[in-house]
């Protein structure tokens, strides 16, 4: 039976989303050549588009694509003079082995090549920007142009960044492997940090079109899911996935039609993606079962408290403060202390939060930061002290370029000024 063309196109599309990273990772594993791996993977998908309409979609598209890309790579190596040496190396290794079996390696105990790929992409010897770009290109399959658009940089800049990163991997000898056990926790933290950064780049981006930012968040969630699948026993990987799923589910209601930031108490809760929240809660549940709590799990738990509450008033604020206490104990960073102060204000009233903000301001850690000024302004406004709130809104406005935040702060400032005038 010959599948209708649109079904085949959909199958190739689906395979692209599911298998791109796996195929690239396998060919790098075979040849050690990142450019060759990308090209041969591209070729394999082109072949799929050409042959699946009359041969039918294979039972295991991933295995078909991997085998096709591997054959193509070996072919290409055979044809080039430089390839002769590499081919011998391949033949001495696993070049004669049967094609990769497309097993669901997350449960089979066999190390997925994608794990080697993601640890290599996120090697600390590469700059963070290069790490993110490499992960999006090789694991997710975004084109250079798409990555450039998402980060609002010229395509040539992004192309250069990718070329340099791959060149460094090759020339400096960054190993293609999962790190040894003693380095693993630190390196895994670096992988999760890249995924988190990618999401935040879209979530709190200071510039760029909304659509591009949305794309970054989508891809970060996909990457988080892949990482969590590849590290089934790492609770933080699942905690991060949970956090991103829950935040992603509220993305659309987080800004108004003109891009104004909408605070959570004003968000249209019926517009939240319930299925996304449910998936996030399931991931969090899975993470917490390990009973090894970490910063991502705690942040996901806080996000979950907000996400499951039917209204702002019914939010479990005491639980949120308790979670922030644990989080501050693990990560005593100024921004987390700031968020805890806001949580305390929600639970015990604005004056309690303001007292904590005073402490934080006295420490000087967030001097001149718009978040501190904005939080203080909001709490003063809630405490019905608009005359005191106004100068802090002005300070916050002066310190941020984020259009959504600027619009929100300007709106609040106008409210305060109106209240003062009354």
């Amino acid at each position, binding site marked *: 039976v010959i599948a209708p063309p649109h079904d085949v196109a959909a199958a190739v599309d689906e395979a692209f989303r599911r298998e791109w990273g796996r195929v690239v990772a396998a060919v790098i594993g075979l040849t050690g050549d990142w450019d060759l791996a990308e090209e041969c993977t591209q070729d394999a998908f082109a072949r799929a588009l050409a042959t699946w309409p009359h041969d039918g979609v294979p039972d295991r598209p991933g295995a078909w694509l991997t085998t096709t890309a591997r054959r193509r790579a070996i072919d290409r190596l055979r044809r080039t003079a430089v390839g002769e040496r590499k081919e011998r190396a391949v033949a001495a290794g696993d070049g004669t082995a049967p094609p990769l079996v497309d097993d669901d390696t997350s449960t089979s105990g066999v190390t997925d090549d994608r794990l080697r790929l993601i640890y290599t992409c996120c*090697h600390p*010897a590469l700059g963070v920007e290069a790490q993110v770009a490499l992960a999006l290109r090789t694991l997710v399959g975004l084109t250079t142009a798409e990555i450039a658009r998402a980060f609002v940089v010229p395509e040539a800049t992004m192309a250069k960044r990718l070329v340099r990163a791959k060149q460094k991997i090759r*020339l*400096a*000898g*960054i*190993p293609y492997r999962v*790190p040894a056990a003693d*380095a693993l926790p630190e390196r895994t933290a670096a992988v999760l940090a890249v995924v988190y950064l990618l999401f935040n780049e879209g979530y709190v981006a200071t510039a760029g079109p909304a659509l591009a930012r949305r794309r970054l968040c989508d891809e970060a969630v996909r990457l988080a899911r892949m990482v969590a699948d590849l590290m089934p026993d790492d609770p933080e990987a699942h905690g991060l996935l949970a956090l991103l799923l829950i935040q992603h589910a509220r993305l659309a209601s987080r800004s108004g039609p003109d891009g104004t930031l909408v605070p959570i108490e004003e968000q249209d809760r019926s517009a939240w993606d319930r299925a996304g929240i449910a998936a996030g809660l399931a991931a969090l549940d899975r993470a917490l079962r390990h009973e090894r709590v970490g910063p991502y799990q705690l942040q996901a738990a806080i996000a979950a408290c907000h996400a499951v509450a039917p209204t702002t008033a019914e939010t479990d604020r005491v639980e949120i403060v308790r979670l922030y206490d644990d989080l501050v104990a693990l990560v005593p960073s100024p921004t987390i202390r700031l968020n805890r102060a806001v949580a305390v204000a929600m639970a015990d009233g604005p004056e309690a939060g303001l007292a904590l903000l005073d402490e934080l301001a006295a420490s000087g850690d967030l001097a001149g930061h718009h978040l501190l000024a904005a939080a203080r302004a909001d709490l003063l406004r809630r405490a019905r002290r608009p005359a005191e709130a106004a100068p802090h809104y002005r300070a916050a406005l002066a310190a941020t370029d984020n259009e959504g935040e600027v619009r929100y702060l300007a709106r609040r400032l106008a409210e305060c000024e109106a209240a003062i005038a009354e």
Partner: protein
Amino acid sequence: MLLISADEDEVERTHLLDDMDRFDAWMADLRARGVLRAHEGLHPSTTATTVRVRNDEVLLTDGPFIEAKDQVGGFAIVDVADLDEAIAIAAGHPATRIGQVEIRPVREA
């Protein structure tokens, strides 16, 4: 290639005995790994002479090619499997505690 550099005044001030012990341990580790191809320590940058040829004229400068707080004080060439091994070796050098070690791959012929 490991390019070892630090603030020379700082090195002068902090050249303590345990630094020498650390250096000896570092050398012993390199020998044990069997990776050492070359290693030299250099005299301070005050002894450096920099040569440039411009319009066929040889120009000499008294001092290093770049005026910087930190100056190269030595180098080592090691034959290692990958960057991770080079990083492990570099991190063991006492100079990393006050200065730094830059790892650069050597061009293959």
